[in-house]
């Protein structure tokens, strides 16, 4: 029964991650797109945490940690690129 809550949460978060694509495509400036990509990465981390509970696998949480670190590196690289230092 609790699994159904997590499946519902996974569906909603996946739809939100897809819904952010609109800002990613239509953002007027480059930082807008970077913000949309950052938000999407956070939604994917949330989705991985929910799937870890659904499938009872700790590996999903480890992947979520590595994904968070890699998305941080990507965001910092985008920031440096927008600043014009790369």
């Amino acid at each position, binding site marked *: 029964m609790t699994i159904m809550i997590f499946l519902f949460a996974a569906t909603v978060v996946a739809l939100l991650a897809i*819904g952010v694509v609109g800002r990613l495509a239509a953002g007027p400036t480059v930082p807008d797109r970077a913000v949309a990509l950052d938000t999407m990465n956070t939604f994917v981390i949330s989705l991985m945490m929910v799937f870890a509970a659904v499938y009872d696998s700790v590996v999903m949480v480890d992947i979520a940690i590595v994904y968070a670190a890699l998305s941080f590196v990507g965001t910092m690289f985008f920031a440096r690129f*927008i600043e014009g230092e790369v």
Partner: protein
Amino acid sequence: MFIIVGILILIGLAFNLLGAISLYRFPDVYTRLHGATKCTTFGTLFTMFAVVAYALGRLVMTGEARFGVLIIHSAIAAFVLLITNATGAHALARAAHRSGILPARAVVDRLEEYDEIRAKREGAQA
């Protein structure tokens, strides 16, 4: 366990939804960054709390060690997420200001003036 996990998941989903809406309803990049980062960080944190509550309930019921491992790794993930999201948002806002983007309906840029004054003062000292 059902009720606690349901409440935590509902809080997390509500804040994630607000973060996604704020990307579309705010006028410029700074307010979008503010709404999206804060709301999605808080919502994802509560999703992690729901997973921790679920694993704690299963740990008490079954006594298997892998649910304890799930709790510890979820805490590490929450820690990493709290640090990286705040730092990334700060770096993006700084980059947006340095590339010359002003907030919507802005008429003055006090931060730019302050930077010029400070650069002049440091130049005089050197």
